[in-house]
């Protein structure tokens, strides 16, 4: 397939003796939205952290945008610059203002002129509706605002792919919606997205495909409608009955 932007083939990964990923195969097309779900400890986060090599896989191949991730990938930073990531704990830089959080990487990694970077950052912050907070520090913002800022920060690098690692799990219920709204807007704008989440409503609304993982394996991979309407495996049925 020519337009698959991520190819994961037979990936295995161990933490010590414990195998976290077992023979993972996955292809992601351009503009595709994939939701990964599953019980905690099933390897979902590890999987998407492998895609920008925050974790190293020990066996198999991962190809992102035509570049294979290997140990001697010298320009891993270039790949990472094209893959945005949003974390469960926001991980904003507390010593920088919201605006500086967003402009830091464009200025220093992409060598963008400061003025352009600030313009871009303000545009992205406006998209997630926190442009009025631009000069505050992360500690002064609510969790939902921080997570939206984290999304804007990732988008400022103009990535081709966005990875979301349980973006709403650390938020109060009423703040979840504002973050999900921002993500839905992003999906509608045509971004390639891989989202690890327990928000099944979000999955139903935007996902093209849903992947269910358990014990390091992909148990079920199905288009969204079938995944919820008639799941194939019993494990998926059990999971869905508990979560919905």
């Amino acid at each position, binding site marked *: 397939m020519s337009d698959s932007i991520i190819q994961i083939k037979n990936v295995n990964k161990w933490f010590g003796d414990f195998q976290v990923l077992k023979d993972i195969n996955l292809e992601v097309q351009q503009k595709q939205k994939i939701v990964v779900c599953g019980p905690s400890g099933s390897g979902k986060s590890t999987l998407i*952290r492998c895609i*920008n090599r*925050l974790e190293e896989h020990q066996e198999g191949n991962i190809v992102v945008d035509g570049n294979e991730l290997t140990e001697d990938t010298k320009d891993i*930073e*270039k790949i*990472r*610059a*094209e*893959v*945005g*990531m949003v*974390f469960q*704990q926001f*991980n*904003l*830089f*507390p*010593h920088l203002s919201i605006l500086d959080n967003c402009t*830091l*990487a464009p200025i*220093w*990694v*992409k060598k963008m002129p400061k003025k352009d970077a600030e313009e871009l950052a303000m545009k992205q912050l406006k998209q997630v509706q926190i442009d009025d907070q631009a000069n505050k*520090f*992360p*500690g002064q913002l609510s969790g939902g605002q921080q997570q939206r800022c*984290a999304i804007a*920060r*990732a988008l400022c*690098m103009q990535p081709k792919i966005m*990875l979301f690692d349980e973006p709403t799990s650390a938020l109060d219920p009423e703040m979840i919606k504002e973050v999900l709204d921002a993500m839905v807007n992003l999906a509608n704008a045509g971004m390639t997205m891989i989202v690890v989440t327990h928000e099944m409503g979000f999955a139903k609304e935007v996902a093209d495909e849903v992947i269910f993982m358990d014990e390091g394996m992909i148990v079920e991979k199905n288009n969204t409608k079938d995944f919820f309407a008639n799941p194939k495996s019993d494990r998926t049925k059990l999971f869905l009955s508990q979560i919905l």
Partner: protein
Amino acid sequence: MNKLNFLKPDRQNLNTYLYMGSFLFFISLFDVFLTSFFKINITSFLPSTLSFLLPLIFGVIGLHLIRIEFSGIKKLDLINKNINTNNFNAFLTLFIIFAIIKSIPPILSWFIIDANIAGDTKEACTGSGACWTYIKIWLRRFIYGMYPNDLQWRINISFILLIALAFVGYFATERLKKFLTLYYVVIYPIIAFILIYYLISGGSFGLMWVETGAWGGLSLTFIVSFFCLIFCFPLGMFLALGRRSTLPTLRYVSVGFIEFWRGVPLITVLFMSSVMFPMFLPEDFFMDKLVRVIIAISLFEAAYVAEVIRGGLQALPRGQYDAAKSLGMGYWKLHILVILPQALKLVIPGIANTFLALVKDTPLIFVVGLLELVGMLNLAKTNPKWLGFAMEGYVFAAIIFWIICYAMSRYSQNLELKYKTER
């Protein structure tokens, strides 16, 4: 009028208790004041033990009587809450107040009333207090060491220039602000070195050469501290990063370096720098004693700075590394832009601690024959014409060091406030 209960003062007879209590309390203070300041014992008719303890007894009873809960008088409540919660605390409070009153007269008389400052010889000091004449006469030596008197303007000019240049940051325009870090980290030390090399050391431009052995006193304290601080900080930073590196060679070298320097006493390091180090050098290679000392202290303190900074690095959550990496930052960008600014802010108190210790360690350079402030004091106190004034000298040194260190401490607190952003 309600019945008075002396065991449990209450609000009903508030004023009665208040007057009696304060009367007893002030009587006790007055008694201590009279005995310590005027040597008058108004209770001398009593047995000596009782007379000695009487103010304490009166005071405790007095404080007991004014210990009225919710008295409605704000200041009284404040006192009761903070220094008079129970009889034991009342006793401690009194004890501290008495100790302060008792210590004022001897301190005052030694420092000022019975002290001498007039005259220029030992014989001028006739009082029983301090002989500040000694400090006055030797002040030049304490500040400039053995530096020739008629050349001391060179030190003065250098220091005035350096202090003036240190304040450049306040006057920088918005456009020049981004160069400030570069200025303070690189340019300023170079200017300082050039000034010290050409102006204080001399030897060119028609200035007489003054060998470093003649430098000394407070100016040498400043020179040594300044350069050691400047060198040990970046070195310590690299060592801290090295110790956390994933490259085994770098890590082991850093660990080895840190553990070696932390394990040896500074005094032996200084001794080796002057005695053993030249043995390993080629015959014609010459490195000044002062330079060797500065290098030795810098390496020594860098090991401590490294561990302090490592503590800050470890305190940062892993998410900060993840986030910076996911934005495409490499090792150096990640550390310079994200990790170090946060880690260094966390370790300001620790760094200040190390730097204060460094300044106070500088007197140890006497082992290589360099005499800074304390070294000059030791020299002066053994001068046959001025024997017996060690006390004045050490008090003087203590005051000077305290001023320097307190200023540094205040500065570090200001830095902490300045960079306080989160939470």
